């Protein structure tokens, strides 16, 4: 009996575990179009890339589509050619180009391989002006009970016109803020020959200005089917407190755009996709059909959307004292100019008193 038990135990210990390999199908390199033209002065940029197989970043790179002929054509037949910038795959309109309300625009693309693509016409509808922006600090529960997300939610106040159906798209412009440092807390490096980690306060500089270099673009969308013709106060942006942004003052820019019904649908689906949490109630991820069509093969899947929109912009200065909740401030024990991108000069148009 004992012998049998030993054999059984032996078999258990030597049994193999075969790793389960997930075989991912080879993904198509789909043309992806990303960009829009607005009623703001140019240049407006269009980015052309190729998608690749989902998986490790080393399996495939998102490749820019270079040396294409790209043009924007309006419903009157005017064509504006876009020039490729130093960043491959990014094409820009001339600086004096801006979209006009009441005109529809199409994106025309001819690739080096001779394939032609066009977008469906996108009509530029007028957008109501942002009357004002307001903000408040909010705290968002996370899975980590010890650390909630804290940030500032921005609200836009505007009056929706009653005589038309409106679809709204809000983006954030480039934010900038007063970067507060503590040069008086500077200490010598640990390998200092005579006074490692010794205090060595600096005279300068405690406050600088920093423009956000790159941040994942968050956006909001809405349609006026529930509030047609009414004044609105909608949350349109959330700026997370990283411990530095709101130590003194933050300037946020909100762009309120009027987009087409199709663009709104596309953006709403994108919003759903990027907010998937991994729960069983999530919608399955899928390629969202855009408005770009291959003229050679209408059944070809082309990702992305070409948007033409009118824009209303406004800035709001967020003052630290007006925030009820704040993240624990981060300390920069050094000259604030040591932070990459920080300057002593305020960014263009900085005028918190206005």
């Amino acid at each position, binding site marked *: 009996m004992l012998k049998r038990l030993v054999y059984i135990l032996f078999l258990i210990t030597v049994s193999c575990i075969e790793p389960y390999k997930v075989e991912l199908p080879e993904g198509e390199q789909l043309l992806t179009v990303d960009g829009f033209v607005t009623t703001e002065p140019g240049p407006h940029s269009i980015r052309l890339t190729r998608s690749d197989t989902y998986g490790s970043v080393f399996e495939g790179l998102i490749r820019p589509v270079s040396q294409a002929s790209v043009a924007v054509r309006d419903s009157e037949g005017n*064509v504006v050619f876009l020039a490729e910038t130093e960043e491959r795959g990014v094409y820009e309109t001339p600086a004096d180009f801006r979209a006009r309300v009441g005109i529809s625009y*199409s994106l025309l693309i001819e690739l080096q391989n001779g394939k032609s693509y066009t977008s469906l016409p996108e009509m530029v509808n007028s957008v109501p002006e942002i009357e004002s922006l307001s903000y408040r600090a909010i705290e968002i529960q996370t899975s980590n009970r010890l650390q909630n997300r804290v940030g500032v939610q921005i609200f836009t106040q505007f009056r929706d016109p009653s005589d038309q159906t409106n679809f709204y798209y809000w983006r954030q412009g480039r934010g900038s803020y007063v970067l507060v440092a503590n040069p008086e807390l500077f200490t010598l490096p640990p390998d200092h020959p005579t006074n490692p980690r010794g205090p060595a306060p600096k005279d300068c500089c405690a406050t600088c200005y920093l423009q956000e270099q790159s941040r994942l673009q968050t956006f909001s969308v809405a349609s006026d089917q529930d509030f047609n013709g009414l004044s609105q106060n909608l949350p349109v942006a959330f700026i997370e407190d990283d411990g530095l942004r709101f130590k003194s003052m933050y300037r946020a820019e909100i762009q309120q755009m009027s987009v087409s019904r199709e663009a709104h649908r596309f953006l709403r689906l994108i919003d759903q996709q990027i907010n998937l949490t991994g729960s069983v109630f999530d919608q399955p991820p899928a390629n969202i059909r855009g408005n770009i069509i291959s003229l050679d093969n209408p059944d070809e899947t082309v990702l992305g959307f070409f948007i033409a929109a009118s824009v209303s912009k406004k800035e709001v200065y967020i003052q630290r004292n007006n925030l009820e909740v704040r993240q624990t401030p981060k300390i920069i024990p050094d000259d604030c100019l040591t932070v990459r991108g920080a300057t002593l000069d305020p960014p263009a148009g900085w005028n918190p008193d206005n």
Partner: protein
Amino acid sequence: MDKSKIGIISLLVVIIGFFSSCEEETSVTTSLITEEVIYLSGERARILGRIITTQNVEASDHGFYISENEAFSQPIIVSLGERVAPGRFIGETSGLNIQKRYYVKSFISLPDGIQFGNILEITTLSPDAFGFSPQNGPVGTTITILGKNFTSDTKVFVGDRQAQVLKIDFESSITAIVPASGTVALEEVKVVVQNQEILLDDKFEYTTGKFTQLSNFPTGLKLFDNIYFQSGEEFFAGLGANNGQSVNSQIWKYSLATKNWTQVVFPGTGLWKAFSAGSFFGGGARVISQNGQSSPSSDFWKFENNGFVKLPDLTFPATDAVSFELNGKLFVMGGASGSGTDAFRYTIATGQWQKIGNIPFAVNRTVLNFQHGNKQYLVNPVSKEIYSIDGSTETWSFFGIYPGDINSGSAFGVTLGDRVITGMANRSQEIWELNISTGIWVRKNSFPGNPIARNAATFVHDNLIYILRSGEVQVPGPMEFWVLDPFGL
């Protein structure tokens, strides 16, 4: 009949009734939509249609009907062929007329007949042309005309001559080649789209400059580093070095009246790299040397009354120096001696030489220079900077940058009114025109002859520029004689 049989029969009836229940045939409808016109121009329409159904279709053809009337009589049929799967389809036609109303509907040919979608109404767009560039150039210049809604049969005219259209991009950018010139330099540019003429606001200006080759020089003499001057309708060239190898003592004359070259009697000896300006010449060397400083000559001559008059000797070496007459004075500058920046003034009225302030950069007799008003302009052969010297104050001032080729010198510079014509530096065929009032340089038609030659002499008469050309040493043949009409087409 016993009860059990009745029961079995009843059960069978129920079972048969249950399993023989009718299956209702469901008919699948196919909807066809003419969705949207996604592209519309003067002649082209791109239409989007969609077949909506829950199963495959067996269509022998599908596409669009386009017609000028709502009854779709004599339609343009855009046939896209067989179709099985439902979904979107795109049809395109480029046979439309500009500014015309059309009706469009999609169609699908099914086994039970042809089915049409909804009708859309479109009006083709009108063409327009906004401008073109460049706005000047020689015959054969490639110009780009920007506009909108150009049709594939768009024609371009410069004046009354049709230009060759190379391509039309996105129906908004025409690339065309400027045709041969007419009788005037400034010509209207016209775009004809179908039958609509569009006249552009700006005109195209042909670059001017017409070269004609005259009879070659009658002998094998090839002048290098020579002198030349002009007396009315008679052009003189000589001395220097024959083919750059032996000092030449001959001087030849070209008569505009007889159109012949004849040798004239020159009482002096050969001079290599002498200066010449107006009716004066002199200096140079008696032998050819590497640095130009051997055996300098102090001879100084003037041509007057159809004869050569020897003037008092020069008091300074003047080999390879540049010279010009200005404000009643003869200036001799630079050359092989010193640092090439010495300058001397000869007052014609008094016959006195005087050394004046140095010039800002080293020059020699091949430096490009021209005269306008009371100023002589010299081009720095290194930096192409143009400096002028005022004939009265003898002060130098910066004028601008020369845009053309300098190469190793010998470009001519001729002033005609407020225009300065320059060019044809060694191995260069470029000709330039300077509007001295505006300071703007424009290219002119290039020299059509052999560039492996250098200008031996330049003369001006009746707004025509006569150029004597010596082929380089390795180029056989006599000197060529050309005339340039700088404003001719």
